[in-house]
């Protein structure tokens, strides 16, 4: 439910850091709370983001919620498949449901994010 190789935010994003880049999406808990996702609005490639900055929105049938950047950096790529297949956020939140890749501006920020176990205790285990 909450892979151990990822880091997590209190706003329910995950980041998978490989070298100086990180892939970002929303957690299993987030997609379950949102319900069926119907539209994801993502930033332009090249946009620079501050840690905690809103970079997109997720519309589910019932609600809209914002997505916050777990780290500072520059957007390297966005998942354009979500335009036609927003349901991937529900079906595969850590895989095909990824949202953006970010070139990290400050890898020191990663240490301040939650590990799987800490995040899991925040969301009550989830099921």
């Amino acid at each position: 439910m909450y892979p151990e190789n990822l880091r997590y935010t209190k706003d329910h994003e995950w980041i998978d850091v490989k070298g100086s880049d990180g892939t970002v999406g929303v957690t299993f808990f987030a997609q379950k709370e949102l319900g069926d996702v119907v539209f994801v609005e993502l930033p332009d490639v090249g946009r620079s983001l501050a840690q905690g900055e809103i970079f997109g929105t997720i519309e589910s049938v019932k609600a809209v919620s914002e997505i916050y950047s777990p780290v500072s950096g520059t957007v390297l790529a966005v998942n354009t498949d979500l335009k036609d297949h927003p349901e991937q956020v529900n079906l595969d939140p850590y895989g095909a449901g990824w949202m953006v890749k970010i070139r990290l501006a400050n890898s020191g920020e990663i240490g301040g994010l939650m590990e799987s176990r800490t995040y899991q205790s925040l969301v009550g285990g989830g099921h």
Partner: protein
Amino acid sequence: MPGTPALKRTPLHAAHMALDARLVEFAGWEMPVQYRGVIEEHLAVRKCAGLFDVSHMGEISIRGPRALDAVQRLTSNDAARLADGQAQYSALTTPKGSPVDDIIVYRFAADRFFLCVNAANDDKDFTWIQEHMPAGAKAEHVSDQYAQMALQGPRAQVILSALTDAPLTALSSFSFTEAPVAGRKAVIARTGYTGEDGFEIYCAPHDAPHVWEALLEKGQPVGLQPAGLAARDTLRLEACMALYGNDIDETTTLLEAGLGFIVKLEKGDFIGRQALLDQKREGLGRKLVGFEMVERGVARHGYPVSIGGERAGQVTSGTYAPYVRKNVGLAYLPSRATAPGSEFDVMIRAKPVRARVIRTPFYKRTR
């Protein structure tokens, strides 16, 4: 939380827990918002059948030798057209011609009517009725005496017929009958809030879990799913049925809301009749229209609407509509801008997103 009154629970609360439903607060009730997912439940109702717990709805009985006169005075539709065993969509009206609530009026007998009202308005309606009740009839608040389930969808009749001897084929739309369901005393009405064929079933609260389980057991092999308030909302919006508190309230007249079909000005006097007559003569300044998003984005209740950069109204309901697969909504617009094809902008997070007026309903069943 201190100071927060405990949420009311329906007699089916344990059944929802057992089905792992997600429960939310709605109008003071703890209600299932979804079971397996809103889109799946929505499509089950369109293609097969869904079962909703709507026990939060309120019920008011009106009895007495002048019960019909009382209903005629309090509501906008013409209750004199009802025979025993017939029901109609109607509204309790304010002197301004706006709804105190939109309701269903059932005629059991000439001296016995029954109103089904919105949960959020249950107490307000009863107070209003008592304050405006003519002599010769008496209102009784009976919400606690009824549970209610809605069985909706093209397979609803097949499923229900396995559990009742009532002649369902002969039960036409907006008719009702008193007959046991799964061996328990019930009222079966051919009504609903989804745009599909189906039934609303009233029974005693202590019988509700048995009836619910029996319906699920009979229905699940043919595709029946329990469905929550989220699907109820997307289904009613796809069928363009108004939601009180979103699309209509005491600040919107029935004519503005496109509910002229429940305004019977020729039936005799009723509360709000003069205001509605005047508005009909003078013309409407604004109307509730259906729209689809032309550009990507989902409109939501309360989003502003602009035409040519000027604020022109607001969205009252909006969603992704799972069956027609469009982002749709309802909005009040100036009458001159309501022709199908007219374009306007919905302000989504301060950005204009293009939308277009289209014919309603967005979905109409063909069977």
